[in-house]
């Protein structure tokens, strides 16, 4: 791993550890008890089964961007409002406040201009822990701006997606339309000859997968990520039968020709850089 920690000092996040105290943790995927320190050393990957746990935005930046490689964070101050005045059991406003304090983020996506092995890129990352990484107006707006910025500066675009939530229901059809907004931006970028790598992490579902996440010139996935349109529980309920093992995993998608490559986290940066060098303008 060649990413640096020092470069991120001016990049202020209130980092929160997800795991409870103690030396051991249980893997969500294989159920084994694994030594936490080993998981951390392996960049949040299970040493037993190679399941890739969710990585926060800060950790992802450390993983992908060169030491001192962040040129700027773009549009850090866009925040959600509550356009529908949405009240369910919990109000949307409270969900936002809670997500902010839990993650230290202002929204589910961060966009930076930075360098990967010296190659300048626009990099967007969604955090599946902020209201399930779902796309409301802010995520849609920042992704669309990221695409437009990459187009304007003639830079390659990488978006690392992690969204179990898809289009954020608390913003109703405004969220749904972000699918059109981001996809339309990518269509223009494509026409202009831009290069876009979509990286799918666990989980990437629904409205996010059915828009910008599926539109990469190259689509990469981390191993064993849950990827698809409809959530597995809803499908099982609808068809009234059990789902085949491995359904909607990265490996399943690769087998069905829906993604281009599965890359272990430890090799992700190197392989992205290699691809960036192949497909340059």
């Amino acid at each position: 791993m060649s990413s640096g920690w020092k470069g991120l000092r001016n990049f202020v996040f209130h980092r929160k550890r997800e795991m409870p105290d103690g030396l051991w943790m249980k893997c969500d995927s294989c159920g084994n008890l694994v030594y936490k320190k080993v998981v951390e050393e392996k960049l949040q990957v299970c040493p037993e089964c190679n399941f890739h746990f969710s990585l926060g935005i800060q950790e992802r930046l450390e993983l992908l961007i060169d030491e001192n490689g962040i040129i700027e964070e773009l549009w850090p101050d866009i925040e959600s409002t509550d356009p529908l005045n949405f009240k369910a059991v919990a109000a949307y406003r409270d969900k936002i406040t809670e997500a902010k304090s839990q993650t230290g983020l202002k929204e589910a996506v961060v966009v930076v201009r930075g360098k990967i092995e010296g190659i300048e890129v626009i990099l967007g990352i969604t955090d599946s822990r902020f209201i399930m990484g779902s796309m409301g107006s802010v995520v849609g707006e920042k992704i669309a701006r990221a695409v437009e910025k990459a187009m304007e500066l003639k830079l390659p675009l990488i978006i690392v997606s992690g969204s179990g939530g898809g289009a954020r229901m608390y913003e109703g059809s405004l969220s749904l339309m972000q699918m059109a907004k981001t996809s339309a931006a990518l269509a223009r970028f494509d026409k202009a000859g831009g290069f876009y790598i979509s990286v799918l992490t666990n989980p990437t579902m629904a409205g996010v997968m059915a828009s910008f996440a599926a539109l990469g010139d190259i689509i990469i996935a981390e191993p064993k990520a849950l990827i698809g349109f409809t959530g597995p529980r809803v499908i099982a309920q609808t068809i009234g039968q059990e789902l085949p093992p491995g359904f909607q995993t990265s490996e399943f998608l690769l087998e069905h020709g829906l993604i281009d490559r599965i890359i272990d986290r430890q090799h992700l940066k190197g392989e992205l850089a290699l691809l960036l060098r192949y497909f340059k303008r």
Partner: protein
Amino acid sequence: MEDTNHGLDFEAPITALERKIAELESFSAIAEVDLSEEIKKLRTRAERLKTEIYKNLSPWQRVLLARHPLRPPVQYFINLAFTDFVELYGDRCFRDDRAILSGPAKIDGQEVMLIATRKGKTTRERLAYNFGSPHPEGYRKALLKMQLAAKFGLPIISLINTPGAYPGIGAEERGQAHIIAKSIFEMSQLRVPIICIVVGEGGSGGALAIGVGDRFAILENAYFSVISPEGCAAILWKNSSKAPDAAKALKLTSKDLKELGIVDEVIPEPVGGAHRDYKTTAENMKQYILKCLAELRQIPMDTLIQQRYEKYRKIGKFVENNNPASK
């Protein structure tokens, strides 16, 4: 016996009055008595009742209307508003998905490409059309026909009535998410005018997949939503019987969508809903389409594509640097 209310309790008083009018009419014919005064009075009462009831429907009641089993199937719209429809099948890859139909047609003599989801009317049709839920091959078929239309300059008319893209194993295996994304992506750049109308249910990404264009309209009692009210209730209330609450919270009615700037126009339905008068509904829709075609044909293609981009680009509400912005 079939429940003629179809679970729509709010319609019961209207249906009862209508039944009574029908009874009186047949009685007066058989018995040769003049009940015209009587019938006229009842008709006026029924009209007033319909107006009253339909003015005050809850969002959930609108959802039920959008799903009404007697709501005009898309084939009726095609027969009433279009001529010379030639259905073209073929996704050139896997199989024909009958949940979607596509092909060229004429509207007031003007050649267009028609794309529609269909639910069917009889049980047999409903099964064959998978209750209006397309698989990836359906979207692939639609996209191919839209690209064909763009090649020959035929404007695209998309009529949407779907609970959503089908959630199933095969659909996932064949890339449901991918084809929805691809369809949206392509539609944003197709170099012909595109008019999309939600005529019943507008279920999430599965509706948007054939719903990107220069004009986006909705019939008065149709709905368009990021998630079904039941799905939303199951997730947020942990109880799908809270669907009426979810329907309210989601702001999915035609009126809400107009206020949010999601739809360009609400196409009026006859009082009492589209299912009471297919012809007027189809005519209203036709007039809207003709109006849009006339407008859109005036716009140079590059400008049209730019305006289409901006139409979607500006949707969203947020604050930036603590300033309210709605770009």
